[in-house]
């Protein structure tokens, strides 16, 4: 899988998270190019111009939040990508919403580290092979 991953987008308004998340992802996908944007609106602008293989999307953001980004993407023609919702929310309705959204591969709880990214990907593969 690692060989296929070329571009990864990280969307979060917390710049410390962006720094730490980038470090973590670099370790897992050393060959991938990693981009970061501070909120949903810039994420959509970025995706107009670029295709990415994986997007890590925060939910609670100013200007345009994670749900609004997903709504907008559902309307667009685009290349397939793996979207992981990343959040520190404990609101159970957020997990339900994520599970029922066809664009979302999985919900990952912060902190974002190598093990929870790996297990999310594994889970997705398992469900697809069934």
């Amino acid at each position, binding site marked *: 899988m690692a060989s296929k991953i070329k571009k990864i987008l990280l969307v979060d308004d917390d710049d*410390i998270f962006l720094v730490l998340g980038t470090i973590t992802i670099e370790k897992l996908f050393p060959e991938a190019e990693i981009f970061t944007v501070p909120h949903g609106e810039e994420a959509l602008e970025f995706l107009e111009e670029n295709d990415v293989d994986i997007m890590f999307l925060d939910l609670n953001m*100013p200007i345009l939040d994670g749900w609004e980004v997903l709504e907008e993407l559902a309307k667009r023609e685009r290349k397939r990508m793996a979207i992981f919702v990343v959040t520190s929310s404990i609101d159970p309705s957020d997990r339900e919403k994520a599970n029922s959204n066809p664009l979302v591969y999985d919900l990952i709880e912060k902190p974002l580290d190598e093990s929870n990214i790996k297990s999310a990907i594994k889970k997705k593969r398992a469900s697809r092979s069934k």
Partner: protein
Amino acid sequence: MDASQLLESINQNINEGIYRSDEKGLIYVNHAFAQMFGYSSEEEVLATSSLKLYKEPNVRARLVEKLKEFGSFENEEVTFLKRNGDEFYGLISSVIYKDEKGNTFWDGAIRDVTELRETSQLAKTSDRLLQNISKNINEGLYRTVIGKGVVYVNDEFVRMFGYNDAEEIYDKNVEDLYLDSVDRKNLVRELMMEGAISNREVELKRKDGTTFWGYMSSIRTEGEGGIIFLDGAIRDITKQKESDEALKYQAEMQKVLINLSSKYINMPVELMDESIVSSLEELGKFVNADRAYIFEYNLDTKFYSNTYEWYRKGITSALNDSQNLKMDDYPLLVNDHLNGKPIFIPDVSLLDEKKSREMLLAQGIKSLITVPLMDHNVCIGFVGFDSVRNFRKYSEDEILLLKVTAEILVNILTRSRNQKQMEKLLVTTNLQNKRLKDFSYITSHNFRSSVANLIGLANVLEEDPMNTEYLGMLKTTTNKLNDAIDNINELLNFENEVSKLEPENINLLETVNGVLELNNQIIKENEIEIKIEIPSGISLNGSSAYFASIFNNLITNAIKYGTSKEAKKIEISAKKLNKEILVMVKDHGLGIDLGRFKEKMFKLGSRFHSEESEGQGMGLFMTKQQTEAMGGRIDLESEIDKGTTFKLYFNG
């Protein structure tokens, strides 16, 4: 034939006993006299002592006395004795004479009236009997003659119709004794056809014009020469009728009261308001009022308001004119209630107090009665009834019944109030729960994102312990965590304080100046120009801590997000509106796209400025909660590139 012969012939041929007498006795009697007294001849009579002719011996002496005194007497009734001792009644008349020689004698005549007397005695007895009956019975008896009118009434009849004597009635037209002359015509027609009527209820009219209900029976009889008599009896049943009516009234009132008290058992609170109005309608119609209503007193603020009202078709509502009335302005309409007494005003225009009088007259009220609603000796309001079309008097019984009604209404009202309060409490509690739940998600989110960063930083610092960039991030993160904890305290305190909010009078200008003082440093650093237009007299009711927090939040937001290098002006102004006070905080910054963000503006956890990482989405949420907790509301206007204005409305 000479004169004395003629006289003798007459004397002997008439039926009366003729006699001449002097002091010593009879001198002459005629034949009829002798026969009358049962003697065989006139001579035999003359030979008998005069005293023997009287049943009571002293009668002769009395009659002689009378003759001597008056010279004559006529038709004295005397009981005489016949020769055989039988009695008979005679009428005796006599004249006294004196002759030329000075001798006194008298002539007289006696008529036997025994038979006559017996018949008349009989007639007298039956007459008296009738009189007795007429006098002593409680019915008015009468006889009328068709074509002539009333010819006889008894004493009771006179009394019943309020006349001085029977003659007055005989002079009246019979129809004048009826309230409606048609009644009389119908009764006569029926009598002529049927011969009798019995037990008819008729409304009759007294001499003074007042009326009463009579129970009437009559028969038709025919006399000689085709005269038609209508004889009858009348009984005054006004009292009976009144007590019947009173009974009926009480039964109806009982029905109303039972309806009133049973209707509300197990009634859901949302139906109660409507039902109270329909109960007022029932009561209002029952006492024939034009409006029925409930007012509730607020003994803390000393104001009172009309909370429920029914009004008759064609009558105007007075509900809107009767809100937030000052109790002190209408002492005559209020004070007695506070002591548990009803207030009855038979004629509103005679009310002593100008303000009360004018208010009631403006509502068209002629008479009114209001009964206090007492909840354990505390007056919580009153139920009242207006009469607009007519003046209305209330009897003591009616007032008593209204008091019972009021007691039932108190129960209903307090139950309705309690249930409403409970439901309000439930809504508040649910809202509070929702707010706390939302809040706990947001704070835990804020905590977790900081903690997640701390874990990540710990990992990278392990590998690169001397990296100053990571150390700086560590500091930022711990500060953010600290802020999140402060926010928690603020919100928890808010929930506590809302429940025990003690309103005080806060001067707006002083509060705003205090907030500006606190932010003096940042204002100077950013060269912000603050313009204040707040009249010094404006004050607000509420918690001073909340006002300080609200203005601090709006002013620091304006400084942080509403100013730029070109636009450094912030205007804070206030003015009195009709019922509210409007406070505005205006900046000339970038503005907000309200089409996109208005809904989110006051939501917990919403943030709008990605550059400022310290925002936790708490500020405007708290500002809105605090404003609403004090009965105010918040709104905003904004135009992109022109600026934003926050508008706060508080009760004046």
